[in-house]
């Protein structure tokens, strides 16, 4: 009941006119960003980090959360009408949604996706309300060794679960950790990697790293390979669903969140895996097997619902443990740091207004998004016609504004460009960007927690594993590390026995 009361208080915060305005702005921006090619929610939140200098935390986070959820809604529009999904989470929407649009059922596909997002987001957020305070209570006594363990988990998870190559993931993480080292050591004031430069002594601001890697790197990379003829979106009318379609989709909408939410909460790459899992589940359970591959509406409804629910799951680990499981969560974590707020179990005690206002605003945002997306989908689809030079010039422009706003220093713009070029090289050679961003954001914090923990234990390494919490987290981390090796071992053993049987 306690969570329910807190949530009601949260609605009190979220429904004030100013915060409603931020929520509306967030979902508008989010939908636009989701529809626009080449710009994802992580880049959008990174580009908006400078507003944290002038805005109350609650307003900023309500807007960021609106962008996150809104981009999910908008992303499926692009997939369905254009068949070139930009975000991994939207790949599945194209598989059945685009054939539907080609067959003249685009309106139904868009409706199935929008209501799916609404259902998934709603159920996911209810689960967030139910679970987050419990998780926070369980973890409330955690200290330096536990925080360090969580950060190690985050490092290992982003490098070994995401992307196709662990080596490249680790390389990216180390680049991020190195960038995080630049500046004065927080505990002793020792200069590190500053080369005597006063500017570098302040360290490289997280905003500059995030904007450089996500925005400048992406814009330059697209510029190098810009498609000469952008795809033509399929024209579509107002989304609606007939009774037959509703009969086919309502179960998929309800099943999606069950898959999406848990996968969002663990560091497993955000919405990518759960949308595929949901797709496979729906296909197996479908009574209309012939439709699959040619536009089965369940294949749009289920995965889209799973995608939005995974966003809610992501917020559980971010708010209760400070563990970012997706790029958007990582950038939001950077925003928390800008405000000097440490997300984690104590967040619910120290900043109840902020957390519950944010959670309540998710419900508000969801309703706004449904209202925005169902009747207005054809209008949003027009955004796909934006001339690409304007789009990428705009990204560069806002990146420059953001970096300059950090401290009003021209040198920051130069650093931004250098980091953008690093981001360009990383995209060229398949180094994932997320580990680097996580390294910069969590690296300095992890070092501090490590040193604090070792100070308490007087240098004994056992001080890092003397709580049940940290032991649990390290066990999970070890499992993540061993998992692929185990898989390899199993295939090798089975192959070996098979080989022997043949011989």
């Amino acid at each position: 009941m306690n969570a329910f009361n807190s949530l009601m208080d949260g609605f009190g915060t979220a429904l004030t006119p100013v915060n409603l305005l931020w929520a509306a702005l967030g979902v508008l921006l989010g939908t636009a960003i989701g529809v626009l090619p080449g710009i994802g929610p992580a880049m959008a939140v990174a580009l908006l980090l400078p507003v944290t200098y002038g805005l109350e935390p609650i307003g900023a986070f309500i807007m960021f959360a609106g962008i996150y959820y809104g981009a999910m809604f908008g992303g499926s529009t692009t997939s369905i009408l254009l068949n070139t999904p930009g975000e991994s989470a939207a790949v599945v929407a194209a598989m059945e949604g685009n054939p539907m649009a080609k067959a003249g059922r685009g309106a139904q596909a868009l409706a199935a996706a929008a209501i799916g997002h609404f259902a998934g987001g709603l159920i996911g957020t209810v689960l967030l309300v139910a679970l987050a305070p419990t998780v926070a209570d369980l973890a409330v006594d955690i200290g330096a060794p536990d925080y360090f363990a969580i950060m190690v988990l985050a490092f290992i998870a982003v490098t070994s679960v995401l992307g196709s190559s662990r080596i490249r993931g680790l390389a990216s993480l180390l680049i991020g950790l190195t960038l995080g080292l630049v500046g004065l050591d927080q505990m002793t004031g020792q200069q590190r990697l500053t080369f005597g430069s006063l500017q570098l002594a302040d360290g490289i601001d997280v905003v500059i790293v995030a904007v450089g890697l996500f925005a400048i790197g992406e814009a330059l990379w697209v510029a190098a390979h810009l498609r000469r003829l952008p795809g033509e979106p399929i024209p579509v009318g107002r989304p609606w669903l007939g009774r037959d379609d509703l009969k086919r989709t309502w179960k998929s909408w309800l099943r999606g969140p069950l898959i999406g939410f848990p996968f969002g909460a663990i560091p497993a790459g955000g919405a990518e895996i759960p949308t595929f899992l949901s797709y496979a589940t729906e296909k197996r359970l479908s009574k209309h097997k012939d439709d699959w591959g040619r536009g089965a509406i369940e294949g749009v409804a289920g995965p889209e619902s799973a995608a939005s629910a995974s966003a809610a799951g992501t917020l559980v680990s971010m708010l209760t443990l400070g563990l970012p499981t997706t790029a958007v969560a990582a950038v939001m974590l950077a925003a928390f740091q800008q405000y000097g707020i440490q997300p984690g179990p104590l967040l619910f005690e120290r900043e109840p207004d902020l957390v519950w206002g944010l959670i309540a605003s998710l419900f508000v945002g969801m309703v706004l998004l449904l209202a925005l997306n169902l009747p207005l989908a054809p209008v949003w689809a027009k955004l796909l016609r934006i001339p690409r030079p304007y789009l990428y010039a705009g990204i560069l422009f806002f990146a420059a504004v953001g970096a300059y706003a950090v401290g009003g220093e021209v040198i920051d713009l130069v650093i931004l460009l250098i980091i953008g070029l690093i981001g360009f090289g990383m995209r060229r050679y398949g180094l994932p960007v997320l580990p680097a961003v996580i390294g910069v954001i969590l690296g300095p914090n992890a070092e501090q927690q490590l040193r604090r923990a070792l100070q308490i234990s007087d240098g004994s390494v056992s001080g890092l594993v003397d709580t049940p919490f940290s032991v649990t987290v390290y066990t999970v981390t070890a499992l993540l590390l061993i998992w692929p090796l185990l898989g390899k071992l199993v295939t090798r053993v089975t192959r070996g026995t098979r080989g022997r049987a043949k011989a």
Partner: protein
Amino acid sequence: MTTRTTDVPPTPGDPRRSWLREHSELGVCVMLLALGVLVLTDALTMDVEITQRGPVGPKTVPVVVGIGLLVIAALLAVDVLRGGRGEAEGGEDIDLSEPADWRTVSLLAGVFLGAAVLIEPLGFPIAGALLFWGAAFTLGSRRFDRDPLIAAVLSLVTYAVFNNLLGVPLPGGPLMGVL
């Protein structure tokens, strides 16, 4: 990042050059190696006796990161020589079937640097508008009636929002002095 690292199909007749082109990812290893050496040198030349507090000083983590960079550089080199390749990232507007357009990328970087230099003497509204127009031009937009107008409006509105609404000061430059 030179033109040699592009994905141009290898020209026959020069095996060494085409080998380098094929294995351009080794450049990443070299960068990681250099970064590792840099981090280690910086860490080991640190003068920490006075400032050490607690059993772990400011050196430890940089040393670990530096060694990590060296190890990863070696592992990546092995992977590349064995035929492993990082996958170039795809996207809605990205066409990977064509070779990289280095001219556009370097021009864009140049426009960006130019705007960075101009931001203080000319002020944000002018430098920002030049950045947008220059970038749009570089990316292929040739609407001389529309492009400068959009650039000017975008830059002025952004200036007003940041400077007046959000309270983040941006340099106005001579233009704002006149208005």
